[in-house]
């Protein structure tokens, strides 16, 4: 059977309508020499041979489930994922990344999105959530777009804290390079020890948005209430980039007065799988619903009085707003959002709190043990959640190489992005790390220092 539904007759009619003789005429604009380039491919393999080759290639990978003990975080975290998450994810009814284009016919998908939105709004302390973005970094960039569009180009400055994930700051700059917008606040001379209030002098009447991270890139926890008040006094919005696991324990950004809360949803039931796919969550206040990118699913009753779900709002999307759309994101991470919704439903409110508490306690045990080593200390004195910056007497790169030889995936080498933090390692500890593993890390790190 053919998967192309048009008949030769219909094809000819279409060609005639656009005024060309054959299908090939449509590709005239492409030089003939690049139309069918000769590909340097090996001879075809049978399925059995291909499967064996792929297995062989895949066995070169090392993963945190069976091969390595991981203390690497820096934005992606190794958490336990209940088996039911994967089971529901792989059901045929859900197994697509997209929300359907005739959405109301897919009540199950809409209900899943509705539950996801409700859970994310509750977790962040905000009033509503969209149906997700690609990842935390693009969600943060969308917050910038939304604020810029809200002030209709009359405010052309965005203030970033230097302790936001360096890659998020890069993505924000990539997203906004086409508009005349000043992105400032995070130059390499910024004092990383300073409190969030140090950003206040940079916020003025030209500032559309202030962005901070919670906990910040170094794992530190700050109350941003005063910063948010100061930004609001200047008429600017504030976006908090939050770790969703931490929110189970900490004061919500909503309670601090944040206008937008975004973040990486990966810690909620999504594996690390070498960098993606992941999930960007985006929550905001009800009064800004018409400014928010993406879609919003609502619960209603049908003409027979039965509960049903509808696509309530897609106002900012391209197919509605055309060139006036403030976001190019029509798609979302539907399947990943489902994973998070299932994860949160399965672990529940107290389960998530327990996960967060385990992370916190284990990270503090690790920090306390590691900082007892000669020449090793904590870089920052502020409270932290499940990640901390460790100051070492040797280059972090050397330490990491030694750890890897012992099957330990070490921390993130902070010197890569922060010139002032050479010899600093960002160490993450989650509920997945046992006390024995932490003790082993201390032991092997001590060995590396003695070398």
């Amino acid at each position, binding site marked *: 059977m053919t998967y192309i539904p048009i008949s030769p007759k219909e094809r000819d009619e279409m060609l005639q309508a656009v005024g060309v003789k054959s299908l090939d005429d449509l590709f005239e604009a492409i030089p003939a020499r690049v139309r069918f380039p000769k590909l340097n491919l090996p001879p075809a393999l049978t399925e059995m041979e291909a499967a064996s080759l792929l297995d062989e290639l895949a066995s070169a990978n090392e993963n945190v489930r069976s091969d390595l003990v991981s203390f690497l975080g820096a934005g992606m975290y190794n958490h336990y994922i209940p088996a039911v998450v994967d089971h529901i994810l792989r059901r045929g009814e859900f197994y697509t990344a997209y929300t359907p284009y005739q959405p109301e016919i897919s009540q199950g998908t809409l209900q899943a999105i509705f539950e996801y939105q409700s859970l994310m709004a509750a977790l962040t302390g905000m009033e509503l959530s969209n149906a997700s973005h690609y990842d935390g970094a693009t969600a943060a960039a969308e917050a910038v777009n939304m604020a810029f569009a809200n002030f*209709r180009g*009359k405010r052309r400055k965005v203030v970033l804290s230097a302790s936001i994930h360096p890659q998020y700051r890069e993505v924000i700059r990539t997203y906004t390079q086409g508009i005349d917008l000043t992105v400032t606040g995070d130059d390499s001379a910024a004092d990383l020890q300073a409190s969030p209030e140090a950003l206040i002098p940079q916020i003025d009447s030209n500032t559309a948005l202030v962005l901070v991270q919670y906990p910040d890139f170094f794992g530190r926890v700050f109350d941003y209430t005063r910063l948010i008040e100061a930004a609001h006094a200047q008429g600017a919005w504030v976006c908090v980039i939050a770790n969703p696991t931490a929110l189970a324990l900490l004061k919500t950004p909503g309670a601090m007065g944040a206008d937008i809360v975004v973040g990486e949803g990966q810690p909620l039931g999504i594996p690390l799988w070498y960098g993606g796919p992941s999930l960007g969550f985006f929550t905001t206040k009800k009064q800004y619903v*018409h400014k928010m990118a993406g879609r919003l699913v609502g619960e209603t009753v049908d003409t027979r009085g039965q509960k049903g779900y509808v696509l309530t709002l897609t*106002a900012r999307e391209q197919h*509605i*707003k055309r060139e*006036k759309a403030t976001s190019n994101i029509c798609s979302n991470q539907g399947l990943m959002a489902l994973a998070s919704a299932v994860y949160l439903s399965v672990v529940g409110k107290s389960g998530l709190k327990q996960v967060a508490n385990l992370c916190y306690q284990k990270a503090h045990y690790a920090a306390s043990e590691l900082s007892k080593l000669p020449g090793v200390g904590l870089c920052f004195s502020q409270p932290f959640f499940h990640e901390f910056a460790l100051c070492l007497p040797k280059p972090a790169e050397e330490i990491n190489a030694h750890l890897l030889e012992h099957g330990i995936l070490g921390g993130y080498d902070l010197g890569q992005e922060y010139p002032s933090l050479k010899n600093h390692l960002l160490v993450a500890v989650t509920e997945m790390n046992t006390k024995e593993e932490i003790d082993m890390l201390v032991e092997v790190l001590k060995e590396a220092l003695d070398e």
Partner: protein
Amino acid sequence: MSNTPSTLKYAKSDEWFDPASGKVGLSDYAQGQLSDIVFVEITVSVGDTVSAGQAIASVESVKAASDVYSPVSGKVVAVNEALADAPESINSDPYGAAWFIQVEGGKDAGLMDAGAYDADCAARAH
């Protein structure tokens, strides 16, 4: 049949302009086509200079989202701040409570009178 007051001038894009007051709004015919309006955002501020054909607002109904264009050129001297909280007034009172902006020295570049506008709307219906 839509209500088309004869004291006003009309743009092909369905906005009205009151030469006496300088106010600008959306015609009764337009609100009927859009159906229930649920959101309105005026995108210009007092003090801005607008030119005829420039987008000054966006409205969203249960059926569609569309832009509202200024029918005249001039300086914005007032914006109807109350409109955002009562978008349904565009449906119920398009020539009264639901004015969008007030333009000073509004220059009308070929707007239609009520008769011509009615004829234009009638032609579009076919």
